[in-house]
């Protein structure tokens, strides 16, 4: 085959996708970067002016936005380890030589096909206030009657944990599948060799399984961390950021800025902060994965 220049054909094939990416991802992103330094408001008659870092100064002195940022961080700090541990436990259980694991795998993965808005609606019923509420009744039963009924979604302390729980329910199946694929790609010889050397199950877990699973684990934690910063649907449907900003998030504040106050520029500044966070998390993950490659 001659190494001819296939530029015209290639452009024909690639142009629709490249045009789409340029118009609907790159352009809006650059627009967000630019608008973040202006004072643009939707429908405002005043001319748009450049205001430098004013929007960033404002959002970082805005108590609501800082609370949102803290909520996202707290959400990530709790959900990422818990959800990863649960997904790992599920994957390890399913990786045993047992009959019927496909049925269990299907059940654990099932919540993933539920749209988050539907999950939020169902769990609002589960969190119904009063002793008749399902979660209240369950906790009363488990605590032998010591639990007093709470209105989870209107309780400043319990609202965020309540949202965390349903997010874990919906998301752990996704992670489980990725970790299970990782487990199944660990060479069997490693375990056979270890067994011959007299390593017990616990030793095999800590010296073979977990080190071999390092990259899938890092990937899964990265994805969950980014999801934690994207948190929006559940909050918008269940609590609207309340009570007293207990469940507000960066995305919720961003959408609020646009819709209730028409502050496009301010929302763009928030989006830029959000992007920088995601960038930092991704960079951290790449570094962690690379380190491991250098070691092996």
């Amino acid at each position, binding site marked *: 085959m001659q190494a001819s220049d296939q530029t015209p054909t290639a452009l024909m094939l690639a142009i629709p996708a490249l045009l789409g990416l340029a118009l609907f991802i790159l352009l809006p992103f650059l627009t967000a970067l630019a608008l973040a330094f202006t004072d643009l408001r939707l429908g405002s008659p005043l001319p748009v002016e450049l205001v430098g870092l004013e929007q960033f100064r404002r959002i970082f002195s805005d108590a609501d936005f800082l609370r949102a940022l803290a909520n996202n961080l707290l959400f990530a700090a709790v959900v990422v380890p818990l959800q990863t541990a649960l997904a790992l436990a599920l994957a390890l259980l399913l990786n*045993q030589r047992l009959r019927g694991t496909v049925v269990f795998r299907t059940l654990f993965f099932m919540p993933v096909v539920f749209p988050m808005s539907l999950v939020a*609606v169902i769990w609002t019923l589960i969190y119904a206030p009063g002793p*008749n509420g399902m979660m209240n009744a369950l906790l009363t039963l488990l605590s032998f009657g010591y639990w007093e009924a709470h209105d989870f979604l209107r309780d400043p302390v319990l609202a965020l944990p309540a949202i965390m729980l349903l997010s874990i329910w919906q998301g752990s199946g996704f992670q489980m599948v990725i970790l299970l694929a990782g487990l199944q790609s660990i060479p069997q010889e490693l375990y056979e060799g270890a067994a011959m050397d007299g390593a017990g199950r616990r030793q095999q877990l800590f010296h073979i399984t977990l080190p071999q699973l390092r990259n899938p684990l890092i990937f899964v934690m990265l994805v969950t961390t980014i999801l934690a910063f994207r948190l929006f649907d559940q909050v918008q449907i269940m609590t609207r950021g309340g009570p007293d900003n207990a469940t507000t998030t960066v995305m919720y504040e961003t959408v609020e800025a646009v819709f209730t106050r028409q502050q496009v520029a301010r929302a763009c500044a928030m*989006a830029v902060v959000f992007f920088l966070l995601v960038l930092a998390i991704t960079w951290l993950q790449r570094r962690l994965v690379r380190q491991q490659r250098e070691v092996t």
Partner: protein
Amino acid sequence: MKSTTRALTQLLLYSALTLLALLFLAPLMIMLIGSLKADARVLVEAGTLSAFLPAEASLQNYADVFRRSDFLRFFLNSVFITGAIVTSGLLVNSLAAYAFARLQWRGRDLLFNLVLALMILPFEAIAVPLFYGVSMLGLRDTYLAQILPFIANAFSIYLFYSFFIGLPKAFEEAARIDGAGTLRIFFTIILPNSKPVFASVAILSFLTWWGSYLWPLMVTIGPSVRPLPVAIAGFFTLPPLLWGDILAFGTMMVAPVLVVFIMFQRWFVRGVAASAIKG
């Protein structure tokens, strides 16, 4: 002795799996069974075991959903929007990936690196300026605004690219010597040999867009082009609060997807596992 420990271990494993399965299944059962009950009884019985017993089951709530909301319209909106994104996305992104994986052209590597860089941009970071643009163009409350921006997808291109690069070149070269053009090669040789990656991309983008909430919430105004996820949130806040109806709405919304998922669960699992190969 040894077989007793083995049996005991198995019993323990099955108990753990069953307990977890019940926890995962409970919200689904609550929805399904609640949807068959009289509205007033759903909340009253929620804290008792009756939540899982559909005494005096009826389909009244389902009839009420159709009476109180435009369910069919929302459902078809969702099917149309998601279907359009997934099918055109498969075509557009696989063609671009093929150009990156197999053709020699100027600017290829630079552009491909740019595509890879775009993968880390989450939609949330561009939602506001995109919304601003859509509003300026007067495209709010249209199907177009819900479909067009999501067809080209950097991650889909990357998944296709990784698959195509691993295909043996021999068939394509033979076809090229026989005089077949690039498009012909793509459709007659690459496509039939790439079913797994097409299935993975289709499933991943289906899951993303079928449940998408933020964007349709921002751009739709009335019910005419509204998809299911936004519709159920609206139905949920529509007074009076009738839990039986809400759960019937939810059941109808998720049932078709659950059926497809159970039929093709192997493909779903494979598709999701494939999403992790990056990095």
